[in-house]
């Protein structure tokens, strides 16, 4: 698809502002009513999805030119998809998030680049990671001493993909260690790519570098295929989204699971039992790329047609991605299975979840927006009375840890894998 393919979306946006809020049916308070961090922080209409569609249409029409302001408008967005879910509550012909992806891709094609993104992409090209300053040689160090199969030399049914954040973030790599150890001990035939593991490419796709994404997707699928891998498991929600939603579009048939799905499966099969009590009250943060964007890819090839004069429909029926089929229940089932643990919910959950602030390249390029967004989420978590925030994405976890360290809030932050590890 190209930006021009979404011209109809731009022309048919009604500026209703639903893209700025949580779904109205689920709204519980004034304090936590906002849905879009970008306009929540910046306030001008152009920082909403509807505003960006107007900007995109103006660019296509040639009625505005590229400016630093346009770059800010396009990139000050976590691509969290809250707008997409809210828009689709009343529309079947709109794809705001897909349009925003194409808008970013167009900016990259036209050489409208942010310096920080260029730096990160250069690092990606050299070192196969989106973490600035990290080198390929250190990628597999997190797994040293774990005695896990090396998929560059051996075959295994399941590949564990640690991802860039867990591979290089020394404070968080314990999550990856715990996951592979648990799965191995549960009898899963699992291996890793070690230092040969590459970035998933998902973040590159999100900031508009589709070419880089394709390169990494192709390489990863080839490596898994060579290793006989049938299933890829990851603890990274960004990676999960890339593997689950983007890779199949390129023909990948390998099963993709987030660790929460595999843990839930092991619990159901009786291969994993929680024996220890954890007397804690926790709240769960739905990562955007595991929740509303974690819906499985459904192939579709068809056309738009008009019926009843001007009504717009699709032939054949077009799959609908409105957040309903994201991964919401698995983490909650796990947490509710832990003896002594009490899960209390925030106001904005599941398809309505507020973003942690890290996505879409914002963590690297707009630290103030990132910080404001995560602080909002931490405040919402604190309002539940929970002692800890549990999540299922290392990007969210890192952002929460950093925000809480800078605040007077005393909450703990856990990846769900850490809770599981404590409970067995």
């Amino acid at each position, binding site marked *: 698809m190209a930006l021009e393919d979404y011209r109809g979306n731009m022309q048919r946006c009604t500026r209703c502002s639903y893209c700025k*809020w949580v779904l109205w*049916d*689920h709204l519980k308070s004034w304090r936590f009513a906002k849905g879009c961090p970008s306009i929540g922080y910046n306030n001008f*209409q152009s920082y909403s999805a509807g505003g960006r569609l107007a900007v995109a249409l103006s660019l296509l029409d040639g*009625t505005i030119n590229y400016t630093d302001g*346009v770059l800010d408008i396009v990139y000050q967005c976590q691509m969290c998809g809250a707008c997409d879910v809210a828009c689709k509550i009343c529309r079947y*012909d709109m794809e705001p998030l897909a349009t925003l992806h194409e808008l970013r891709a167009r900016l990259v094609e036209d050489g409208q680049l942010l310096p920080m993104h260029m730096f990160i992409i250069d690092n990606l090209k050299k070192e196969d990671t989106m973490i600035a300053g990290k080198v390929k040689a250190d990628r597999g160090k997190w797994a040293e001493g774990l005695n896990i199969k090396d998929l560059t030399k051996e075959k295994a049914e399941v590949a564990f993909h640690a991802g860039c954040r867990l591979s290089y973030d020394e404070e968080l790599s314990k999550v990856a260690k715990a996951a592979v150890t648990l799965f191995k001990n549960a009898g899963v035939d699992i291996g890793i790519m070690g230092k040969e593991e590459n970035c998933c490419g998902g973040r590159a796709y999100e900031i508009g570098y589709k070419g880089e994404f394709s390169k990494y997707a192709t390489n990863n699928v080839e490596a898994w295929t060579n290793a006989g891998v049938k299933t890829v498991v990851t603890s990274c929600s960004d990676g999960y989204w890339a593997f689950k939603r983007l890779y199949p579009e390129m023909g990948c048939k390998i099963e993709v699971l987030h660790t929460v799905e595999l843990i839930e499966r092991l619990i159901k099969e009786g291969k994993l039992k929680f024996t220890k009590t954890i007397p804690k009250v926790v709240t769960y943060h739905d990562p955007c790329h595991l929740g509303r964007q974690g819906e499985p890819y459904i192939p579709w090839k068809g056309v738009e047609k008009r019926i009843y004069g001007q*009504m717009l429909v699709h032939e*054949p029926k077009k799959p609908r991605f409105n957040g309903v089929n994201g991964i919401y229940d698995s983490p909650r089932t796990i947490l509710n299975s832990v003896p002594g643990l009490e899960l209390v919910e925030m106001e904005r959950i599941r398809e309505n979840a507020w973003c942690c602030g890290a996505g879409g390249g914002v963590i690297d390029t707009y630290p103030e927006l990132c910080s404001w967004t995560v602080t909002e989420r931490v405040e919402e978590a604190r309002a539940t009375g929970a002692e800890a925030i549990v999540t299922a994405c290392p990007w969210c976890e890192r952002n929460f840890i950093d925000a809480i360290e800078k605040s007077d809030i005393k909450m703990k932050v856990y990846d769900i894998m850490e809770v599981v590890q404590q409970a067995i």
Partner: protein
Amino acid sequence: MTLWRLFNRQSKKERYINMTLPREVYQVLEDIVGPRNITEEPATLAAYAFNFGNELYPPYANRFSIRPSAVLLPGSTEEVQAIVKACNRYKIKYKPFTTGWGSIAGVRTENSIQLDLRRMDRILEIDEKNMFAIVEPYAMGGTLQAEAMKVGLNCNMPGAGAAVSPLANGTSQWGHGPPTLYFGHNSEVLLGIEWVMPNGEILKTGSLGSGVGWFCGEGPGPSLRALIRGDIGAQGNLGVFTKAALKLSPWPGPTQLKVDGKPPAYHVSLPENFRMYTLTFPNWRAFADAAHKIYDAEIGYICHRQWHKLGKDLAPAFFLMYSNPTKTLDDLEEMLKDPEIQRFTQEMGMPLPIVLAGQTPNDIEYQEKVLNQILAETGGHKVAKMSEPDIEKFTLLYFIRWGHKNLNFVYAGGYVGSWHQYGTPDFNVKYAQVAEKTLSKYQATGLLVQAGGDAMMGPIARTGGGGTFSLEQFTAYDPANKESVEAVVNYILESAELAKDHGFPSGFDEMAALRFKGTVGSQAYLENLPDNQRFQWQWKIRHMLDPNDAGEVGTYWMVKPKE
């Protein structure tokens, strides 16, 4: 050559010239709101020029209209006042909006600035005992309702839904909503108001004007509700309303809605003192009789002829589709081939959804009995399909939260309202038949969505909570298809002529037609309307309150009174 083509002749390159403010003026405005809250970035100005409905009107005939010279985000009454005074001083026009939904929100003349009030979004107080809330302009209907419910109260949700401002709805734009029958019109629930007048002075109205609190709109103190808004409101063209107290009504439900189900049709279950029905009647006459009787019996919490906004022929199947998460619009055509759904569509020929809410068990039983008696007397009945548990729970939430208003655009992204003259039920059903015939004629061309000629909706209540109402005829079209847009314009113009021929007062058609003609053309048009006296009054009010002509007046229609 049609009117639409005439104003679409400009080439793209001639359009969208940014009118830059003099640097001195920009600096003055920036000093007021701070650099983070003012912009003249062309991309942002373009976003503010974009709105639904602009494609129907001059000068550009697409979703973009005139760009403001700058956009400001004031954060307080003091900042608003300073901006308005600066505009008076420097002869800059200003136009405020809250959520800015619809083409009336944007500026219509060049050299105008836009005030986006979204930073003024607080609910300052909910006075539980005296049953009112003090709000800023950008407090949304949905947020106010959620907070009010926590203390057993509810607000009159604007007809445009949870995503718009009750303050703006009350002070500046229409004012009725689905619960108006019980809650009263939003112009009536306005109590004390803080108003930055067009000359920059602050006036406090009602009891607030006497310094005794927000509790009364009429006084002691100046009671100016009629002057500030007249019938439909000045639509942002008469100063800026920065705070208002809004009367709240009892909410006999839980303090928080417990919502479940899957999108788009979430569910809510409420206690036994709530009932949700879709009634249906054999004809317009029976419908009007039932409306009269519902007023007279003083039953009902929310009552609104909502479903047919999506057209008599398609709406029943649409809402069955919509309430099933596995279905999409792509399924609609196939669903309509089902004989069972065809029978259902027939049954829903004249629907009227109603929510009953009893303050006590006896109250709900009384209301139920009265409703049954009204149905027996008018030949109406409750539609059984709409009372199936999943649909009932969805429709109940739909009517209480009013969070699906953008369904107006679900077919193709374009909607315009027409007709909508106010009057008794007997008067309404008189023009309904003309409206149905006219829309059917244009739908037959295939350039509008063929949803059925009866696409009329509206709450069966207006001023006083009942006794009058209006039927807004919905027209669905594709804004990206120029032929479809042209057909809408021609339909509106014909409807306006027909209304005049029948002696009906001005409705939505006239207002739309005025905007087709632009500011200059509208003068002659207004002078020739049979009810032009009100536009003469608007001229007097405007010239008295805004001597420097600082307010942007793109949609404030007025005619200079004849000597």
